[in-house]
């Protein structure tokens, strides 16, 4: 036993091994009940493993912030690059604080009428230095930040920076947490379940709670702002406003993809064998979405467009997020493929109806968030996987019940997030202002809002 004493840093392991009882639970009585003591230890190690995995998952989800920043920057013009970076950075920062101080209570506090949390404000949710709550809070903060950051892409290149900051606080403190309560409130403890949860609403990792909510807010933002100058002509025809850096955008998509392996498998918040399945299913959804988008774009547009294909990858990922724990590989491939096709059609359709979403946030997150939500009702195959006695998906003999619940949930989320988003953005529009001046938009937000030049020295046509 002697050598072991050389290993530990800060005596952590020793504490664990010999002091595990006192640290992790009073029910472990080492000396008198060897069997229990042993059991407690195994349990402790598994809990530690869960914590390690969940923290790794949370870190990967944090990495998605970089992914979003890169995709949004790459898909827009050089003159707004610093501004978009700034928005992505700040929505995470203000959002983290807002969620920590307020939002987490709305989401995971004691539930009132299945709708809203009512206690735990100002961070009184922590009990022990090494307890699960800290890890849970870390992981959930990253999810909240993901929902909040989706919007910036749809509102890129024309939104006032100060208004965007206010938006991001409200989303993280209020709109997202309450949406989260409905489907996920029960994750934290008894008495905190949400109303949709009670109906058996299925959204394992957040196609609805994170992406559909974020995407609906993005839709509201794009509508409230109106299109960028030069996007649509007087005669109704459409101009392309090409993104300035597809290399960075592709990197962004790959970073998001990496992060998604924290987002979906991490949502077990447990280091168990299921994470392998969820990771594989997630990857199948993503690759099939990419291939389908490539094919759809190639057929419809004549050439395999990179930016569209990138959206296809994200579409597949968003679509598989809700059903990633409940469908089979073949289900994942189909869900992803449909998502990949949908995103192309949606991008083209939004252009047709003159909604200007520079990065395709609505098509990726709202449309495919919705599709993923519904796909649960169609493809859920719990019995095939062996995770439950009966499958709930229509195609696997589950009937229409689950599908109905999924539609109901989607409708509720749309009303909540699009509705509140519209209210919020219109309120800002008519008070502090939501959009920069025409002149400022032409010059670029980097210069006007931040006094910065993202690419000093590079010769760039900024008229484009």
């Amino acid at each position, binding site marked *: 036993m002697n050598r072991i004493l050389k290993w530990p840093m800060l005596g952590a392991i020793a504490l664990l091994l010999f002091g595990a009882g006192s640290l992790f639970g009073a029910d472990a009585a080492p000396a008198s009940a060897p069997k229990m003591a042993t059991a407690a230890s195994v349990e402790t190690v598994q809990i530690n493993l869960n914590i390690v995995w969940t923290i790794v998952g949370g870190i990967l989800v944090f990495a998605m912030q970089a992914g979003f920043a890169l995709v949004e920057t790459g898909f827009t013009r050089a003159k707004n690059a610093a501004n978009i970076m700034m928005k992505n950075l700040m929505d995470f920062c203000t959002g983290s604080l807002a969620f920590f101080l307020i939002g987490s209570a709305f989401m995971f506090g004691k539930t009132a009428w299945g709708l809203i949390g009512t206690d735990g404000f100002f961070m009184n949710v922590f009990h022990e230095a090494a307890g699960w709550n800290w890890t849970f809070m870390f992981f959930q903060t990253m999810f909240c930040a993901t929902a909040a950051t989706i919007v910036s892409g749809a509102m890129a290149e024309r939104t006032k920076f100060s208004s965007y900051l206010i938006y991001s606080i409200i989303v993280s403190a209020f709109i997202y947490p309450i949406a989260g309560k409905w489907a996920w409130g029960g994750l934290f403890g008894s008495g905190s379940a949400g109303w949709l949860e009670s109906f058996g609403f299925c959204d394992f990792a957040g196609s609805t709670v994170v992406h559909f909510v974020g995407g609906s807010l993005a839709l509201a933002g794009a509508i409230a702002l109106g299109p960028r100058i*030069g996007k649509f002509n007087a005669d109704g025809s459409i101009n392309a406003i090409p993104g300035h850096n597809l290399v960075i955008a592709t990197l962004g998509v790959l970073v998001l993809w990496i992060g998604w392996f924290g987002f979906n498998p991490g949502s077990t918040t447990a280091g168990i064998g299921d994470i392998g399945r969820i990771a594989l299913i997630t990857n199948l959804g993503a690759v099939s979405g990419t291939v389908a988008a490539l094919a759809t774009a190639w057929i419809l547009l004549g050439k395999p467009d990179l930016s569209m294909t990138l959206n296809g990858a994200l579409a597949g990922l968003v679509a598989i997020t809700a059903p990633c724990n409940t469908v089979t590989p073949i289900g994942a491939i189909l869900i992803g493929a449909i998502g990949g096709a949908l995103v192309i059609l949606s991008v083209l359709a939004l252009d047709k109806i003159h909604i200007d979403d520079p990065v395709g946030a609505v098509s990726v997150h709202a449309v495919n968030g919705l599709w993923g939500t519904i796909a649960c009702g169609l493809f859920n195959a719990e019995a095939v996987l062996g995770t439950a006695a009966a499958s709930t998906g229509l195609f696997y003999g589950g009937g229409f019940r689950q599908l109905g619940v999924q539609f109901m949930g989607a409708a509720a989320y749309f009303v909540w997030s699009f509705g509140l988003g519209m209210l919020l953005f219109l309120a800002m529009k008519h008070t502090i202002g939501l959009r920069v001046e025409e002149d400022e938009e*032409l*010059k670029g937000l980097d*210069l006007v809002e931040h*006094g*910065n*030049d993202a690419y*000093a020295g590079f*010769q*760039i*046509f*900024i*008229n484009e």
Partner: protein
Amino acid sequence: MKLIIAYIKPERLNAVKQELFKREIYKISVTTALGCGRQKGYTKSYRGVINEVNLLKKVRLAIGVNDDYVDKTIEAIKAGACTGTIGDGKIFVLPMEQCIRIRTGERGTEAIG
């Protein structure tokens, strides 16, 4: 024949192009440039240092035209580029002795259009 060179604000390029097209002037060449003029520049603050930037982003147009097109071209550029604010830019008219279309070898006024 003349070579008309203009330095304009970048955000006016599309407008100038449209004005030129309206007047059936389709052939132009465009370059990015930095300009320094009466428009004293703006203050850019990078890391807290407030710097006077006196080289502003401009776009340079070069248009070779036959003599009878000179006024039309100038007019078009003015129509598209003038905002009435400092920094709108300049038009220079240079004499041009010869013009050759590379593809066909045509020369002179034939070649320009």
